[in-house]
């Protein structure tokens, strides 16, 4: 394949997939081929060492915002239907099916949003537990000093300091596991988002 053929194919594919700045990206790849040729490769060798167009486009799609990916997917579906001569049918089905697909799409979005909110709530509550243990330990420690003013008996003061020690111990003990769990949930959120995005980028 010649440099021109590769770049034409790349540009066309980028435009078809609605990748922003297709021209800038094509220029970048043209420069890469030129640099390879300057490095001693022939034009054919230079092009053959370049990544396949599909792989470049798929990588570029992964960097697009998810809303653009969904829009591109819908347009792609319409275009394919048009190519098969079913463009009007696609449009009619999209309009007639609106009462079905729109609530389903909205429900799907709301479910996903709920999942994200729940996962974040888990992270926040984990840290709230840790924070409250720390606060409770400090409060028990301070409360124990009430014995100095004769507000509580010595036994109650000792019990309060005992509680403070237990709570502080729990706070320290749970710090690392809670941090680990929190990070794992954050990673899970990121992974889920990338998986969803990946499904549209394919």
């Amino acid at each position, binding site marked *: 394949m010649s440099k021109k053929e590769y770049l034409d194919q790349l540009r066309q594919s980028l435009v078809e997939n609605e990748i922003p700045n297709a021209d800038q990206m094509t220029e*970048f790849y043209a*420069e*890469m081929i030129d640099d390879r040729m300057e490095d001693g490769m022939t034009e054919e060798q230079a092009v053959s060492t370049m*990544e396949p167009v599909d792989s*470049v486009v798929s990588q570029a799609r992964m*960097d697009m915002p998810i809303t653009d990916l969904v829009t591109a997917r819908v347009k792609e579906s319409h275009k394919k239907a048009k190519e098969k001569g079913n463009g009007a049918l696609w449009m009619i089905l999209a309009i007639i099916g609106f009462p079905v697909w729109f609530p389903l799409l909205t429900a799907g979005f709301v479910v996903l949003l709920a999942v994200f909110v729940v996962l974040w709530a888990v992270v926040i509550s984990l840290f709230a537990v840790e924070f409250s243990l720390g606060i409770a330990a400090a409060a028990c420690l301070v409360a124990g000093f009430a014995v100095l003013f004769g507000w509580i008996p010595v036994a109650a003061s000792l019990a309060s300091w005992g509680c403070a020690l237990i709570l502080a111990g729990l706070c320290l003990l749970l710090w690392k596991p809670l941090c680990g769990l929190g990070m794992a949930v954050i990673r899970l959120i990121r992974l889920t988002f990338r998986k969803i995005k990946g499904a549209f980028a394919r």
Partner: protein
Amino acid sequence: MESQFRRGILDACVLAVLEQGESYGYQMVKDINEFITITESTLYPILKRLENAKMLTVFTQEHNGRLRKYYRITDAGRDHITELMKEWEEVVRVFQYISREREQRHE
């Protein structure tokens, strides 16, 4: 390698290469490939991202009768490397802890 982790490392690699002096796409691919595999399709979004974050600047210069884009690191880019290095120390500590734990388990 986990993709987010790899992405962070590649960002740092690009900035580290540019810290040694301004460079262009193909040269960066060659330099970084000595340590970690990188392709043009991976490099392009990294350069765009770093440019948008003002961690590098781009300028065009004539080279052998054609125009070539060169990339130069900014102060924000240098600061980012410093931050990454600090975070990296933490990663190394975690790595050492995991290695120790595994060694103890296998003994």
